[in-house]
């Protein structure tokens, strides 16, 4: 069957020593129940869960002890029955060696299950019900990333999954957890795959497995007999198990940069995830344990263990016979992409697939870094077809823009470039550094942009307020002028027989008024020409306007000063005193301007009458 499946190749790739036989000689063993289980609240990608139990609570095996309160995530369950001992910060598996919130469970030794609801015929369910079961079973991707499986199984509406790929490539050296799972639990693997296929209804369903696992391939071939599931045995080449590479091998398609496989109608799921789905549906069991490879030359009995989540690594390493005096490097994950641990006091979580206790000669420290000779070996092996040596050059020179231009962010950090580098340059480390720096720069840029927007918005608001104030002032002035005109008209009307305000009279009054104005202005002009020594008649008018302007200016200046003072006070700047002085000064200035204006108005209030009576 496998021979009929068309396969493609991906660029580059390497063939590191596999060292898988170390851990495949024995079947999967149970690691047993340790004295204490430490369960991080976040074992998946997304938001951390919140505890649903309190310290001192007695919980049963499989009981939910933490659930999603917000954001994306999956719940956490008690791997065995016992008492909640504490909830607090403990070291978690992370490259930084950081601590995070965990629930600590003290097993009572009874291993008593909670009520479970197995489903014999999942086809009788609604698909949403099946997804809900997968969600509440706490399943997240077990290949390494830990993306919540139920969310992944619900691709965007406009993205139909045509091809469902089960990733059994397991291309990293040393790791055999998926290999042993496929050998021993092929039926569970296929059952879980079928459930996922039933949810997604793809046209094609294919298991990809490297040809260095003939036993697993044989087991799967038997398990898939008579089904539509295809089994593709692919050439062993690292990193064929990378999601993007496996998709390329099996479909010939490439996941668009920055996109997800669903964009091209493909979805990848891990072998372990399939088993977890099968258990959730057919047994009603949540994800409380997983298969972990414990290997390396520093353990006497390397092999695969069925480990309860939360089991401390030191307990697990003890089970495998760790030789304390020989171990030099402790790696969580594989030798290509895993990270070193500082302590064994971290628990196994949903994404822990392998722990390597290596002796010094096994994974020797690389020789000192030499100059890059641009030999291009790194580009030859890069599965993403990047130019690693150029990226390195730019990263080292902190020319991040150029590194980004050369698609730095498409790097999957598989480590093939560093593996082959003849100058033993830690290339991946440079890329991580560059990516980190760019992310920081982006965050800072965002912050700066926001600050600028805030500042501009404030400026606009101040301007608007100023304009509104100006408008109000003008309206007030207009109203005052109208009131004055009315008063004058009324006075004239009163002169012209008061109450008899018929239209004609009003009209003639208006005409009269206009004429009077005309006359007045001509007279004024004449007077100006004739007697320049007596400009007092017109002057008050001009003065008022100037004073009004002055007043408004002083007022706005005072407001600005006050705003500045407030800001300065808020920021506890050292120019507060100076600003306070300035505000008082401006205050006085405004007062003076107001008085001057009032005086001017008073003066103005008298001359028009004398003018009109003239």
């Amino acid at each position: 069957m496998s021979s009929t499946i068309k396969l493609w190749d991906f660029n580059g790739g390497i063939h590191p020593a596999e060292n898988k036989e170390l851990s495949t000689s024995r079947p999967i063993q149970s690691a047993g129940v340790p004295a204490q289980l430490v369960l991080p609240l976040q074992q998946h990608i997304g938001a951390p869960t919140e505890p649903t139990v309190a310290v001192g609570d007695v919980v049963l095996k499989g009981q939910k002890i933490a659930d999603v309160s917000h954001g994306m995530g999956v719940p956490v369950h008690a791997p065995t029955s016992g008492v909640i001992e504490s909830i607090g910060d403990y070291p978690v598996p992370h490259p930084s060696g950081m601590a995070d919130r965990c629930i600590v469970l003290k097993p009572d030794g009874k291993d008593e299950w909670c009520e479970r609801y197995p489903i014999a015929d999942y086809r009788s369910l609604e698909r949403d019900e099946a997804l809900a079961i997968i969600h509440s079973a706490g399943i997240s991707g077990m290949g390494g990333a830990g993306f919540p499986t139920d969310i992944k199984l619900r691709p965007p509406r406009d993205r139909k999954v045509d091809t469902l790929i089960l990733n059994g490539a397991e291309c990293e050296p040393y790791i055999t957890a998926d290999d042993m799972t496929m050998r021993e639990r092929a039926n569970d693997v296929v059952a879980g795959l079928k459930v996922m296929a039933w949810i997604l209804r793809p046209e094609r369903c294919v298991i990809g497995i490297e040809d260095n696992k003939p036993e697993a391939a044989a087991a799967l071939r038997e398990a898939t007999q008579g089904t539509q599931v295809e089994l593709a045995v692919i050439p062993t080449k690292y990193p064929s198990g990378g999601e993007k590479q496996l998709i390329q091998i099996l479909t010939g398609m490439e996941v668009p940069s920055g996109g997800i496989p669903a964009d091209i109608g493909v979805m990848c799921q891990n072998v372990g995830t399939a088993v977890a789905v099968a258990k959730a549906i057919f047994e009603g069991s949540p994800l409380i344990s997983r298969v972990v490879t414990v290997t390396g030359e520093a353990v006497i009995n390397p092999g695969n263990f069925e480990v309860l989540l939360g089991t401390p690594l030191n307990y697990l390493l003890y089970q495998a016979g760790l030789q304390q005096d020989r171990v030099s490097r402790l790696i969580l994950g594989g030798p290509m992409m895993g990270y070193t641990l500082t302590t064994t006091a971290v628990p196994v979580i949903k994404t822990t697939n392998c722990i390597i206790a290596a002796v010094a000669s096994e994974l020797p420290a690389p020789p000192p870094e030499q100059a890059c000779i641009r030999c291009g070996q790194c580009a030859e092996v890069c599965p993403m077809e990047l130019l690693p040596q150029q990226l390195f050059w730019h990263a080292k020179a902190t020319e991040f823009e150029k590194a980004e231009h050369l698609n730095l962010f498409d790097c999957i950090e598989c480590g093939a470039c560093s593996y082959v580098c003849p100058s033993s340059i830690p290339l991946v480390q440079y890329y991580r550094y560059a990516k980190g720096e760019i992310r920081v720069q982006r965050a800072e840029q965002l912050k700066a942009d926001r600050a600028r927007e805030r500042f501009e918005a404030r400026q606009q608001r101040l301007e608007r307020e100023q304009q509104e104030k100006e408008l109000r002032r003008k309206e007030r002035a207009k109203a005052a002028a109208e009131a004055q005109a009315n008063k004058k008209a009324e006075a004239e009307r009163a002169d012209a027989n008061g109450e008899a305000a018929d239209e004609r009279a009003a009209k003639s009054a208006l005409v009269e008024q206009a004429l009077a104005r005309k006359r007045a202005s001509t007279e004024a002009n004449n007077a100006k020409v004739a007697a320049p020594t007596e400009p007092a008649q017109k002057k008050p008018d001009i003065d008022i306007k100037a004073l009004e302007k002055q007043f408004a200016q002083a007022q706005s200046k005072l407001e600005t000063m006050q705003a500045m003072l407030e800001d300065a006070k808020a920021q506890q700047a050292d120019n507060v005193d100076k600003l306070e002085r300035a505000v008082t000064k401006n205050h006085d200035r405004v007062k003076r301007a107001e008085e001057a204006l009032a005086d001017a108005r008073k003066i103005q209030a008298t001359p028009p009458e004398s003018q009109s009576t003239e």
Partner: protein
Amino acid sequence: MAFVQQSSPHAHSARPTSKVMLWVILAALPGLLAQTLFFGWGNIINVVWCIAIALASEAAILKLRNKPVAFILKDNTAAVTGLLLGLSLPQFAPWWVSGVAVTSAIVIAKQLYGGLGSNPFNPAMVGYALVLISFPVAMTTNWAEPALLWDKAPSFAETLSVIASAKQTAIDGWTMATPLDEYKHKIATHTADEVLAHPTFGEGFAKGWEWVNAAFLVGGLVLIGLKIISWHIPVAFLVALVVMSLAFGSNEDLYAPLSLHLLAGGTMLGAFFIATDPVSAATSHQGKLIYGAGIGVLIYLIRIWGNYPDAVAFSVLLMNFAVPFIDHYTPPRTYGHHKARRGLPGGGRN
């Protein structure tokens, strides 16, 4: 218990730069052997002398730069530079000519630019071009006569004494113009048959030279087989040379025939050992093809229409100039992208 803290990957393949360079040196030995068989002791003496000068001048500069001398010398790159000059200089070139070539290669072309990995130009070829221009007499009159033509081959001691003397020219009976030189300067006034009657030419090939070139070809194929060099540059180089020769040089009475272009002069040494210097060559596959082809074309142009009979050094250096430009426009298409991202960030091109 303190565990080793290291960034991934934790596994590394074991072929350091020093071993890569050692393989280059080993792969050049058949060529050196052929040179010795067909042209006497001159090349071996040159190689030893040049490597010694290369190591000494590199050590001196590293010392001045406060760099770890032994650690860097062990990368074998200075030795390779010395070796390449020893292989390409005339057999009887006086010691000071090769000394100047090597010193300027290491000091000026390599270390002054920042040392290994930072030199834009092929150091060996900078040294070669420098002495070729500065000492044209020493660089054209000291080519050994094919051993088959010698009445009495100069002994090791005699060869050494010629090289060690300060004179620019060697003894007449031992030297002869190279086949490319001969053809270039005679063909204007003679027919091809007349030119080829000269004893430096064998059965239509350059006597001795064809074996030397064949030996470098074998060594080069070994390097490709070991994946120490990729095939792109040598293949593009040779294909371009063949295409140029077929396109322009079909008339043997005007231009040197294809067989001479391929098997005389420094063609194979240039194609597999010199043009493939990764530091100064183009990066991507496409870039390497352009780079190699450029050298092939330039070699033909200079050999036929230029002033020099051979042109590996000038062609390589000219293409070194073009490398940043080539690299700029030939990045590979990254997985998941429709097109390669050419040009500068923020530039108009995609």
